[in-house]
């Protein structure tokens, strides 16, 4: 056997417990009856309960509420972070002002420093936004901007300033230069940022746990947690697994459609510090 074949064999052997087994267990038990799923075996179900299980999750697990809220928060917050982050990055990369440099470093610090959750709750209470979706959304934006600012500022610095100056000489305003020249050139960095943001914001549980109040405002991770830990469903593995699958499905589908671009965006985009 060649070295390459040995390597593929070892990788396959590693993938079985690491990926195949956990996901098979997840999928196959989500279509079993409650009693059969309770055994947590990897065998095929004796009778299929996919329709009832998933319907139960959609109704009792408040899946559609969670999906709606997750979309309502993820879409605008990611658009805002990418838009405002790239605008700021352009200013940071091109402006010689010293005061801007300080705010740049403070923004980038937010990538490493952990969020102070209790004072965030306090701040939102003072603003009358505690427990609301808009307060949560703005917190998500404020704590994630640093990452996009960091990615984009580095990227703009590698771009020649000539095009921007040529456009300026042709009489273009700053907004036009940003919109027509800088933003299109930033596309690769913004794509990398978007992937990281989608993964991070869609799956956020920590901020949602503290900042969202009331069942009507829960995002998918919150509905999953509430569904799984409500005593009545604690051990109903078939339903917990069905909820896990439905919660992960939007990202998994998006990933299957564009996996090539996602992986190359993360390996070639500026994720290495």
């Amino acid at each position, binding site marked *: 056997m060649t070295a390459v074949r040995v390597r593929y064999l070892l990788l396959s052997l590693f993938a079985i417990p690491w990926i195949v087994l956990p996901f098979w267990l997840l999928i196959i038990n989500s279509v079993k009856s409650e009693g059969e799923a309770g055994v947590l075996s990897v065998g095929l179900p004796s009778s299929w309960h996919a329709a009832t299980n998933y319907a139960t999750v959609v109704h009792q697990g408040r899946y559609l509420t969670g999906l709606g809220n997750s979309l309502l928060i993820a879409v605008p917050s990611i658009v805002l972070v990418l838009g405002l982050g790239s605008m*700021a990055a352009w200013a940071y990369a091109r402006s010689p002002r010293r005061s801007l440099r300080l705010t740049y470093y403070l923004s980038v610090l937010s990538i490493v420093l952990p969020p*102070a959750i209790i*004072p965030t709750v306090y701040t939102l209470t003072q603003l009358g936004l505690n427990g609301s979706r808009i307060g949560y959304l703005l917190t998500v934006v*404020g704590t994630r901007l640093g990452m996009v600012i960091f990615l984009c500022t580095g990227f703009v610095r590698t771009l020649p300033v000539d095009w921007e100056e040529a456009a300026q000489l042709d009489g273009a305003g700053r907004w036009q230069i940003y919109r027509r020249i800088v933003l299109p050139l930033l596309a690769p960095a913004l794509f990398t940022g978007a992937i990281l943001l989608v993964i991070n914001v869609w799956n956020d549980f920590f901020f949602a*746990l503290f900042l969202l109040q009331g069942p009507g405002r829960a995002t998918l991770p919150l509905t999953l947690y509430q569904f*799984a830990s409500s005593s009545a469903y604690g051990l109903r593995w078939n339903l*917990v697994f069905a909820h896990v699958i439905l919660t992960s499905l939007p990202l998994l589908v998006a990933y299957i459609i564009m996996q090539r671009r*996602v*992986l190359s965006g*993360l390996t070639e985009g500026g994720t290495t510090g």
Partner: protein
Amino acid sequence: MITASSRRRGPGLAWFAAPAILLVSVFFLVPFLANAVFAFVQWTGYSDTIRWTGLTNFSLLGQLGILGHAIRVTIVYAVITMTVQNGVGLALATALQQTNRVNTVFRSIFFVPVLMSPLAAGYIWSAVLSPDGPANDFLSAVLPGSVHYAYLGHSVSALITVACVDAWKWSGLATLVYIAGLNRIPAQLVDAARIDGAGTWRRFWSVKFPLLAPAVTFNVVITLVGAFSALDVVFATTSGGPGDATTLLNVALYTQYGQSYFGQASALGLVVTGLVVLTAVPLIGWLRRREVPM
């Protein structure tokens, strides 16, 4: 290079950063600075007054046995997560460095856990590792006797297990960062070492690994910092137990917050910040010094 024209447009350009500065200030910076004050005040949901109490929050948490224990558990958790995640990530990256059809399939498969929520990862693995789950079934098949070990039911194994689930969820991303780092190493250097007679092992540790330093810096710091503020996986698996074996700082923080002890919760938050600063700053410095200029 600052040209006359870029200096002229300087002030107006700064306005493009204004919305970001405002949002970062109000929703990150102000709370972050306020935490350094809230940690030292008496503030509960049972009284309207907030007053300065110095180190009382910390000493109360210490007397209750919460503070020291949570710090130890968090550090152990972070070190395990960091080691497993980077070990797996680096091994997979070395195996999958070349871009070809088979490697691309493996890369996309190993990336799937990154997309799952940490809660989902916690539920999946508590099923795999439950006393009657498939992990024990496999062990029962290969070992004499039947194995029904409760991985999440004993203090030490629960902490290790939860940390490994966290590492499982993020290893795919570490792999990609290491692949990017490996691809940045000039092929001539590796070839030169091969011609000089260095074997695979020697080429990895003496040539590739030192040149991989920027990727190592990034991954090690990001994993440690992330693990210091972990909470999700614990909520989906042990809820901090058995006993308080997996009560990380943020899990303890949530408990204090739930009991309306906001000052004590802030104190625990400040400890998380302290851990991050104490670890990240010297570690970045130390790892940067090891970086070989290319």
